[in-house]
């Protein structure tokens, strides 16, 4: 830390308390809304407050940066903040991936009366056998779970019914009509295009930077449209819904949270794109863009995991 540039500590700020208020309203409103779906108003109010405050807050940060208030040390604080935030996001997805593995590998076998993992012993425990025989007679371990334990035991009286069709690999003959493959191609390509944009910025090639950043945003939007199409397909033609047993549960929760993060990443890239049109970012001052790019690579890596464990591996 050099003495001529001191660390910028704003004296006071009204944004945090406004953000906390918005956040509190969002939490209270969301709970109100899930209990009484005719009352989304507190949630909407909270979300609006939050959105406005975030815009103003980041606008201030950008302005401060343009005024040169942010020295190298402060910029490094932002970098650390973003990287550790991405790490926390990784752990959020880890919870859902962990749940998926546990449900697929262990719970599914137990419900079917089998041994979970045959490393130590292939014979199922008495508990697993009894569980299957008494509670879920007729259920056989399977993935995707097309017939739930509830259906196996209770037939048409079941509350949880499996899907008619799963979203998994449809065989080589139908591979080109398989949306997830196209989504993978789109998202992987976008990771490359954002990298090309980054290289352009580092080499002071603004045209390359702006063009490829714009292409990345477009690819992000295409991904979201394709995913919406996939969901419509699932709900209308495949009987695959959020409540169709554990397959629908894990499928929609994992891909849904990923989609939400792609949306966030696309918004971040879009902001960076409009800023780039206004001439923001230089080869040595590009945190706003770089953090969006890191985030984009992160959602891309999550997708690779999803593609393998949710779609491909049966």
């Amino acid at each position: 830390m050099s003495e001529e540039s001191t660390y910028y500590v704003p004296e006071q700020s009204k944004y945090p308390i406004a953000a906390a208020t918005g956040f509190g309203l969002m939490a209270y409103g969301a709970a109100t809304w899930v209990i009484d779906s005719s009352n989304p108003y507190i949630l909407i109010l909270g979300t609006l407050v939050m959105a406005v405050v975030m815009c103003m807050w980041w606008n201030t940060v950008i302005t401060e940066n343009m005024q040169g208030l942010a020295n190298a040390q402060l910029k490094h604080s932002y970098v650390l903040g973003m990287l550790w935030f991405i790490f926390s996001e990784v752990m959020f997805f880890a919870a859902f991936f962990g749940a998926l593995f546990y449900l697929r590998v262990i719970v599914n076998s137990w419900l079917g009366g089998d041994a979970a993992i045959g490393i130590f012993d292939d014979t199922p425990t008495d508990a697993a056998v009894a569980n299957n025989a008494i509670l879920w007679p007729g259920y056989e371990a399977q993935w995707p779970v097309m017939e739930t334990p509830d259906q196996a035991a209770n037939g048409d009286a079941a509350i949880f019914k499996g899907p008619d069709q799963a979203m998994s690999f449809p065989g080589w003959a139908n591979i080109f009509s398989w949306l997830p493959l196209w989504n993978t191609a789109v998202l992987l390509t976008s990771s490359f295009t954002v990298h090309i944009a980054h290289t352009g910025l580092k080499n002071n090639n603004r045209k390359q930077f702006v063009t490829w950043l714009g292409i990345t945003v477009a690819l992000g939007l295409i991904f979201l449209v394709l995913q919406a199409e996939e969901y419509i397909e699932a709900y209308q033609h495949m009987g695959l819904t959020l409540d169709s047993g554990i397959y629908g549960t894990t499928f929609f929760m994992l891909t849904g949270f990923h989609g939400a993060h792609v949306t966030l990443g696309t918004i971040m890239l879009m902001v960076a794109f409009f800023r780039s049109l206004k001439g923001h970012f230089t080869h040595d001052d590009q945190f706003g863009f770089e953090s969006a790019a890191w985030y984009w690579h992160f959602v891309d890596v999550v997708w690779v995991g999803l593609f393998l464990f949710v779609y491909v591996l049966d």
Partner: protein
Amino acid sequence: MAHGPATLADGWKAYISRWVFTTNHKDIGTLYLWFSFAMFILGGAFAMIIRAELFQPGMQLIKPEFFNQMTTMHGLVMVFGAIMPAFVGLANWMIPLMIGAPDMALPRMNNLSFWILPFAFAILTSTLFMEGGGPNFGWTFYAPLSTTYAPESVNFFIFAIHIMGASSIMGSINIIATVMNMRAPGMTYMKMPLFVWTWVITAFLLVAVMPVLAGAVTMMLMDINFGTSFFNAAGGGDPVLFQHVFWFFGHPEVYIIILPAFGVVSQIIPTFSRKPLFGYSSMVYATAAIAFLSFVVWAHHMFTVGMPIAGELYFMYATMLIAVPTGVKVFNWITTMYKGSLTFETPMLFSIAFVILFTFGGFTGLMLSIAAADMQYHDTYFVVAHFHYVMVAGAVFSGTAAIYYWLPKWCGKMYNETMGQVQFWVAFIGFNIAFMPQHFLGLAGMPRRYADYGLQFADWNMVSSVGAFIYGGAQIMLLINVILTIRNGKPVADEKVWEGAEGLEWTVATPAPYHTFEKPPEVK
């Protein structure tokens, strides 16, 4: 603000906006500390209701439904509202002073992290007044009690947990960025005071596991409202999945609570022993080892759910392994005192009590880690006694020690030593009367979280309740002592409040000025 922070003399408006809009790490630390004390009193009031009802067998004061809400809210408020924010408050106050930084790395986000908490706890506490009552499923909120059979207010609980988690994650990121980026020149990692070390490791744990807790409550939310079947075997899920996800968060969480306490004690014991901390680097490595192990032992909370024998054995041995780095720490604290010129001011008394009682709680933890024996101990008062020895005599005692230790630096006035020592003995004796008998109750088979009990448990329950009221009274003494100190304590001018104290925080003026280290100090 050239004239310094607004005081009451500047008028109410200026004074309130100072606290609401502040970006100053000392102000925010103070806010955290007062908030956590308020929550400590609230959670303590819940505990008093529990102990009053358990004073005698049979139902005297409240209904069992309300009793369940009290046990749940007591745990939630104490863990998330009292202990965690208390240590974040200490971190805010002390980390910049200890590493020679002008403030926290991200001052505005620091304010946001704090001000989320009052909203979160307002939402959580308001559930008590809702139809069907507040959360009644225990602070560990196991499914399906917290999903299929939960009151409607569980939705408010879920979102309150969500925003508390966001607050913790932001606070932790701030601490990590501060420690990694704001150290004064020459302040290398292995020169950092141990409190800073334990906190940065704690912050890492928080960033890693709070999102997992968010995942757990999200799964609950979906199961309750949107027809998913994460925790429902009928659809192919498993209620035990909840326990795995919860304890993957929950076990690191108990180290999140105790590691900063280790840090505080590691500052205080050398000061009053007038010797440097014994085995500094082994303390750092032991802390890191405990943090690492905390990720791989979670299912020792679940020995009775029917895991395969291989799982039971693995989690048993891995858990026992934690005793090794913990033993290193206890050894080092004792060795620091060995042949030191000790004095026994209030912070030191609390720290020594910490070492003794925490070790005791650690040993009962070792008993619980034996899977075969845990079949007997599980969900009895033995467990309650165990974790109160580590949470209260561990975290709360060390937090109290920290208040006495740093209060003169914060406000430039000395607390009343006699009153402090009296408070210590009342707290120490009250605590042991309250919780020691719970070991006997648990070993005799009294289950936890029950509103009523068999007659054979009556005597020790009465003793335990008396102790709990004594311990509760000790907290009022602490509050009075702190207020009296701030209002008319004897002024201290010496930068080094304690004779044996070492570190950058003792080089700034007393009371600590509003802004410190605007120019970084040189650390040799």
